[in-house]
């Protein structure tokens, strides 16, 4: 029987290793898998590379992971948001490596890693400092930058509902990076507001099919 349910966030993240590359869904606080991040932070893992869009607000979730010294490097597009105090402090003290990647390039690199594509070309960042050191190639008279895939050891995502096969649906704009990150790692862990019976999610409406998801844990209710 396939049963990907886990009882607690602690149990769900118990075996994540030091030095892992961890993809984290969410866009600002919307769709951030905060409880999974906090459970991981509580384990005081070390040497993580995290791939996510923003660098956390306050001292919870992604912010707590950084605060606890778990993170060596962050790959993101927009680290600073109101309240990204932990990031700013660590970055300015030189204690955190930052790889700045355009938002769409993060999404496409993670998707490429999920799709067996080791590298692709994109116009984005051509002629800018973010293309420095990258291969540039001309197709049909236009220059493009070669980008490499990102593959996670782990993905932490947040969804609205899930089932024991790992199927997920989201609510409104919490979808954002979550389905992308969910595809992109060897071990994908989802926190959901509600675990429903198998068959309750309409197969037409499933956004993340369970094949991408290894563990599902039910946490707080949506908007609770």
């Amino acid at each position, binding site marked *: 029987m396939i049963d990907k349910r886990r009882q607690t966030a602690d149990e769900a993240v118990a075996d994540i290793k030091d030095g892992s590359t961890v993809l984290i869904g969410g866009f600002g606080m919307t769709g951030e898998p905060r409880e999974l991040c906090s459970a991981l932070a509580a384990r005081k893992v070390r040497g993580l590379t995290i791939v996510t869009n923003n660098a956390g607000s306050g001292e919870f979730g992604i912010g707590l992971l950084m605060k606890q010294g778990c993170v060596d490097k962050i790959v993101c597009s927009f680290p600073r948001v109101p309240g990204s105090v932990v990031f700013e402090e660590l970055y300015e003290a030189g204690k955190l490596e930052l790889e700045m990647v355009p938002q769409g390039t993060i999404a496409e690199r993670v998707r490429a890693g999920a799709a067996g594509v080791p590298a692709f070309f994109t116009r984005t960042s051509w002629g800018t400092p973010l293309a420095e050191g990258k291969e540039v190639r001309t197709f049909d008279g236009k220059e493009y930058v070669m980008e490499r895939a990102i593959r996670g050891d782990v993905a932490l995502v947040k969804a609205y509902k899930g089932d024991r096969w790992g199927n997920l649906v989201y609510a409104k704009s919490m979808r954002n990076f979550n389905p992308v990150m969910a595809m992109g790692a060897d071990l994908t862990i989802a926190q959901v507001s509600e675990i429903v019976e198998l068959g309750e999610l309409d197969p037409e409406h499933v*956004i993340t099919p369970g094949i991408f998801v290894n563990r599902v844990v039910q946490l707080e209710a949506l908007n609770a």
Partner: protein
Amino acid sequence: MTPLNRNQMAWRVAHDIPDGSYVNLGVGMPLAVVNFMPDDRDIVFHSENGLLGMRDLKPGEEPDSELVNAGKRPVRMLPGGAFFHHADSFLMIRGGHLDFAVLGAYEVAENGDLANWRLLDSKSAPAVGGAMDLVYGAKKVLVICEHNSKDGSPKIVKEAKLPLTGRECVSKIFTDHAVIERTGDGMVVREMIEGLTFDELQDRTGAKLRLANDWKPLITPDLPVEERPSRKKQVGEI
């Protein structure tokens, strides 16, 4: 001579976008454009966090923490809207499916180069967001910015000195002084505010301008800017 305020600039941009367009608004000043769309136009606003068909909340409407725009502010959805994930959202942007992106600017160069993501003297971390995706992805890039910085230096320059967001990507610039189009034949002034001469405008501009034969006065309604409680400005709000 009275320069436009931010709302008037947003109003002017809004009236440049034809019925039926798909439009992305950058974080900061561009976000105000949504408030001034003419009622008789169906415009579909795209937000890079995975929304098509969004609008600002109506006064008194309850915000939903799960329904925010690219600036992380609560919005609502129009009938006909859709949600999608980030890879699909940036497929839309990067694949040329958007008609317009409206972006802020630190500098726009004579050749259309845009710099809007990083200041040179900044000690803190950079933040690029979706700007580099939008500049090459949208069919047309409209820039909304003050004509001059607070110290009087021009934002429309001969050559950009700041780190670029994209090369030769700006189509049209909407400032508090003028509407300027980038053409194959350089920067052309389409509209100027009343009481400003072309020579005065050129003096305030780093790039070489040309006045269109059919130029018009830049006229907008009175649109007072409400005082909002001050808050820390977000990086990327230009």
